[in-house]
């Protein structure tokens, strides 16, 4: 029997904890399949640029990527609304339920299908936290601020709250916040923000987060996937599902420790009230609806998630 060897690129820098976690996943795959599938992980940009992994997976140059699907919103807008339903959910397991019980995963697979790619599963790296130089306690506090937005729906919603969005590449975000080019930065989770050193220059953060909860998918080349025997496929799916739970849990636990640590450094963690979150969700509702117009699949994904949020009583 043939041994399969895959190259998979992730969105993480080599020194990040999440990269180490993905390495664990690769080790588990080798162990669980008895070496019939071996995955070599590559860090961000190692083989192709972070925004080019889907092309490379489609061409079978890479056999897979594990990244934020919203990076490919320019190819299929549905990947943005599935990848991060900004201001929508409260915590990852809610979106996980939507994916697995409400047809979300099928939509994601349909979105990736035309690029010759197949999504094995998803995980999350936690709920993101905004780094702020001034306290942002409610939607109105964004008025007049300059906000460094990442891509997509979260920034558009924050713009509706009255912030002006400044587009700054990742490499310059730190300097921009330090020198006051921007007042708030959308970067990553509390622990990553802390590790990069944002709290040496800014003393406020939103926590627990609410604005963004991006998916990390595990998507592979369809030909490579189909070449696997069925039992190996099943093992891969199971190993990923276990890994997904493990990553979400580990990061959530770690965030609690980091939250205490940064507070000791004098950082104020700002939790929005349920009412303010609800109002923010109302504004995001308009942004989601705009995105629904961008493609039939985006429409389907937006409406399905809106319905699910109503079911969860998160949306009126």
């Amino acid at each position, binding site marked *: 029997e043939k041994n399969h060897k895959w190259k998979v690129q992730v969105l993480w*820098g*080599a*020194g990040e904890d999440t990269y180490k976690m993905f390495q664990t996943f690769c080790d588990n795959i080798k162990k669980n399949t008895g070496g019939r599938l071996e995955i070599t992980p*590559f860090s961000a940009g190692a083989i192709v640029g972070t925004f080019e992994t889907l092309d*490379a997976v489609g061409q079978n*140059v890479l056999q897979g990527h594990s990244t934020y699907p919203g990076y490919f919103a320019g190819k299929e807008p549905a990947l943005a609304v599935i990848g991060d339903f900004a201001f929508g959910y409260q915590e990852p397991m809610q979106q996980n339920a939507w994916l697995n019980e409400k047809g979300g995963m099928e939509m994601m697979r349909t979105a990736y299908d035309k690029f010759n790619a197949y999504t094995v599963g998803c995980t999350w790296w936690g709920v993101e936290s905004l780094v702020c130089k001034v306290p942002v306690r409610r939607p109105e506090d964004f008025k007049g601020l300059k906000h460094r937005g990442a891509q997509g729906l979260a920034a558009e919603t924050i713009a509706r709250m009255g912030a002006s969005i400044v587009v700054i590449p990742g490499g*310059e975000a730190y*300097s921009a916040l330090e*020198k006051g080019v921007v007042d708030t930065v959308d970067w990553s989770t509390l622990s990553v923000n802390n590790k990069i*050193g944002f709290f040496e220059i800014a003393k406020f953060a939103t926590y627990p987060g609410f604005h963004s909860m991006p998916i990390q998918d595990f998507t592979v080349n369809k030909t490579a996937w189909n070449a696997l025997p069925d039992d190996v496929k099943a093992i891969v799916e199971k190993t990923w599902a276990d890994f997904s739970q493990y990553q979400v849990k580990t990061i959530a636990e770690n965030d609690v420790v980091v939250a205490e640590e940064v507070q000791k450094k004098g950082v104020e963690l700002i939790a929005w009230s349920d009412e303010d979150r609800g109002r923010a969700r109302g504004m995001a509702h308009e942004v989601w609806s705009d995105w629904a117009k961008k493609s039939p699949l985006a429409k389907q994904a937006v409406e399905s998630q809106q319905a699910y949020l109503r079911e969860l009583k998160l949306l009126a």
Partner: protein
Amino acid sequence: MSLGYLTLLVFGALISALIVGLPIAFSTGAIAVVMAVWLFDLNTLNIIVSRVFTLMGNNILLAVPLFILMASILEKAGIAEDIFKAAYIWSGKIRGGLAVAVVISCALMATMVGVIGAEIVTMGVVALPAMLKRGYGKSLTLGSICAGGGLSTLIPPSVVFIMYALTAGTSIGQLYMAGVFPGLLLASLYIGYIILISYLKPEIAPSAPPEELNISFVEKLAYLKNLVLPGLVAFSVLGSLYLGWATPTEAAGIGVVGALIAAIINRRFTWRGLYLAVIDTTKVTCMLYWLFFGASVLVGVYTMAGGTAYLKELLLDLPGGRWGVLITMNLIWIVLGCVIDWIGILLLTAPVFVPVAIALGFDPIWLGVLFCMNMQISYISPPFGPAAFYLKGAAPDNISIGDIFKSVWPFLGLQLVALGLVMAFPAIALWLPQTMLAR
């Protein structure tokens, strides 16, 4: 085939391509193509265009043409010459004073810019012709500009530190602080060397001739007014950054505007001058972009072939304990620095080096400083020496790339000394961030 042989083969092929006169930019690219097809298949060539496209969207590169344009406008408008005359007259009797002035200017500019290139090009148009005219030795002149120019990425702000922090998951702010003293250490070593060699070989570092020395203090003051306009340019860069108006890349663009305004106020602006400045900038920048494309595609294919895994094996199989590993890391950086650029080196080595170093109990911030100091070496080590390429772009035609590479050896030696010192005494790097954090 083992990756050890493959690595040797890649180096061999690269050197052969260079020997037959193929430009470095295309040697790296072509070797990547050959390697991709030979080790994998035609399909793999997709990553070559993919990596070129990724670099096209990388705004770190954008500061390059902007700073070159700024320097070129200053030169065409004669402002460069003014700055230098003032510096020369004020530096007076000190032997090698101009070369020392170059290093000090570089260290000062380094607090404004975070990419390599700007200082070298500026010094290349400002200092180089004037120094040669006044009888300074070619080697001392070229070497001090190349080496001094590298300081821009060791003294904060620094895009090298930012990219390292993002790759390694460490604090940018702490890296900035950790870079300060090693940067000053290097600058002092350069200055010490220049003064020493100037006294040992007075013929390569003449002091100012009597007619330029015997001028009254009032006249000397008059020369200072020449510094007002360049001061305006410096302020437009520095001010826009520190006032929070512009990002580092944007500040480079503001510098161009500042240079144009200075030229207009000085009544030296001409459309012809602007046109020539733009043309010069284009030629140099096209050359540089293609160099980075080539290096990037080579790194991509080598990584895919298992280069990263090979580096790991190389490290783990070593005798000599943790220090053996650390020294090997530095040696690998130095060797890689000869043939590829710092972004490529970072992407290739960080996945292995950072976790291994941390596991061995080394401080990742200190490792980042060591990385940055190795990149100081990579800027000037032949045959892929970005500092030399920048300087070649700005230098008069009679300066060859060979002249430049011949000039860097003493400075390379000093960089090794500084690297050794920071390795032996991590406190040189870590004292400042630790003190600041403890506050």
